[in-house]
């Protein structure tokens, strides 16, 4: 690794500069300036409709799927704008994995749910696939619960297991960035805790962006935190700062539960 690369390595992974995103006339994100470092866990908090999900969906360009959307400013990963014309969107989405609020079981077995992504990349060797699947399921702390029934249909898993399966599916692609869009909103407290703990184990290897509408979750995870409100980035800082000495009145109101 050359020196400049090493320098870039320590520098930011994701950087938004004056980034705005529009659905038709509606401005969902306004002039966002945000830097996320490599191997950082960033929690984006904010009430519904604040633009959190739009931000995630801009990063892997799932937002493009809706007709009539456009953006302004730049949104870079490793210094390359994700919207520049040379970007291979499918490749971008492999590098930027996403876990959705509602866990999705693709209509196939547990094994195939995880093996699917690597297979699409052209990995056919069954021993190799088995290894990848086991590693991804172990990383997602699901292996012990499903190792004896990998050929079961994935829809038989519980909600919490299914969400960890979704995480395993993303990890199997060895992405650089993992985006989680309110991954625990449909889960019970124990499953929620499992996933929150999992995040801290994964952050050594991935850059993670978590979105939550729940300030309590933001406090529990205790990471770098950004607060979004009505498309505007109000404040960023460590969870400690945001929760104990917020600079902005709106942040204070939100973390103290006055709205949200």
């Amino acid at each position, binding site marked *: 690794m050359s020196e400049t690369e090493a320098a870039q390595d320590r520098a930011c992974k994701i950087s938004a500069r004056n980034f705005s995103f529009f659905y038709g006339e509606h401005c969902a994100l306004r002039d966002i300036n945000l830097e996320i470092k490599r191997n950082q866990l960033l929690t984006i908090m904010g009430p519904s409709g604040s633009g959190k999900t739009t931000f995630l969906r801009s990063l892997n360009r*799932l937002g493009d799927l809706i007709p009539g959307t456009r953006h302004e400013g730049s949104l870079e990963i490793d210094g390359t704008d994700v919207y520049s014309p040379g970007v291979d969107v499918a*490749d971008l*989405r492999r590098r930027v994995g996403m876990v959705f609020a509602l866990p999705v079981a693709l*209509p196939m077995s547990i094994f195939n749910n995880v093996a699917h*992504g690597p297979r699409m990349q052209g990995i056919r060797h069954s021993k190799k696939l088995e290894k990848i699947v086991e590693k991804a399921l172990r990383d997602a702390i699901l292996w012990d619960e499903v190792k004896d029934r990998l050929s079961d249909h994935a829809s038989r898993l519980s909600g919490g297991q299914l969400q960890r399966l*979704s995480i395993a599916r993303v990890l199997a692609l060895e992405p650089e960035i993992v985006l989680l869009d309110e991954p625990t909103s449909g889960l019970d407290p124990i499953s929620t805790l499992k996933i929150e703990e999992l995040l801290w184990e994964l952050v050594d290897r991935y850059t993670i962006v978590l979105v939550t509408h729940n300030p309590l979750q933001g406090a529990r995870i205790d990471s770098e935190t950004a607060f979004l409100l009505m498309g505007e980035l109000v404040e960023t800082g460590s969870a400690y700062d945001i929760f104990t000495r917020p600079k902005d009145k709106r942040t204070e109101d939100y973390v103290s539960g006055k709205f949200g």
Partner: protein
Amino acid sequence: MHNKETLIQWLLATVALSAIAVLALIIIFIFKEGSPVIARLGLAKFITGTKWSPTRGMFGILPMILGSVWVTLGALLIGVPMGLATAIFLAEMAPPGASRILKFAIQLLAGIPSVVFGFIGLVILVPFIRQWIGGPGFSVLAAAIVLGIMILPTIVSVCYDVFKAVPEAYREGMLALGATRWQTIKMVVLPAAKSGIIAAVILGMGRAIGETMAVIMVAGNATKIPVSPLEPVRTLTSNIALEMGYAIGEHREALFATGIVLFIIIALLNTLARIVARSEKV
């Protein structure tokens, strides 16, 4: 209030039962009219006989059974891939505006009377086949092409609805894994829609095997077993429609017996398709 409820319930039940009663009457009638001749000739001789010559008292309908089978299979071979491709394009790829216009056009296709399809086949397709491909033009091929186009609206609209019913979360989940549009369709949308696609094929098959007018006009209607797609052919439905006007006595009974065979074939196909559709569901 309660009386009104009961009244409506009885009314609806009566209407529903009378629909079923009509079906039962039709079945009883064709069996009553057709079974004596089958009993006299023997079932095996009737359905495996290769000579149909009413004036000489020969009633073998194997050519017509095979005719219906070839023509229907041919129609499916043409209509299913085309219909499926159209539905995939409309539901998954076309911009919403274009999709709406194309869907409307295909629904118009369903409104064209079958005699018009037959007429176009007669004046364009039959001469084309005669001149460029060979044979007399009136053929299995001509009938299959005309029927293939006629079943398109059924297959497209059923498949379209089935694709639209596949949860958006499957597509997003796949795309987020770095799948291309086509990989998403191939690996998630089509498998999830499989039983619906089979239902579309059954409906198309039902339409193809039952269609009479358009087939009579382009198939040539010869009562011999076709050995090539370019030879003329007569289907079971054509057999009944062509001769019903002047048939009397045993000949008339034999036409009803043709109806029995048609009825049984359709019932078997439907049952088979249902079994397939059920076993495909995970």
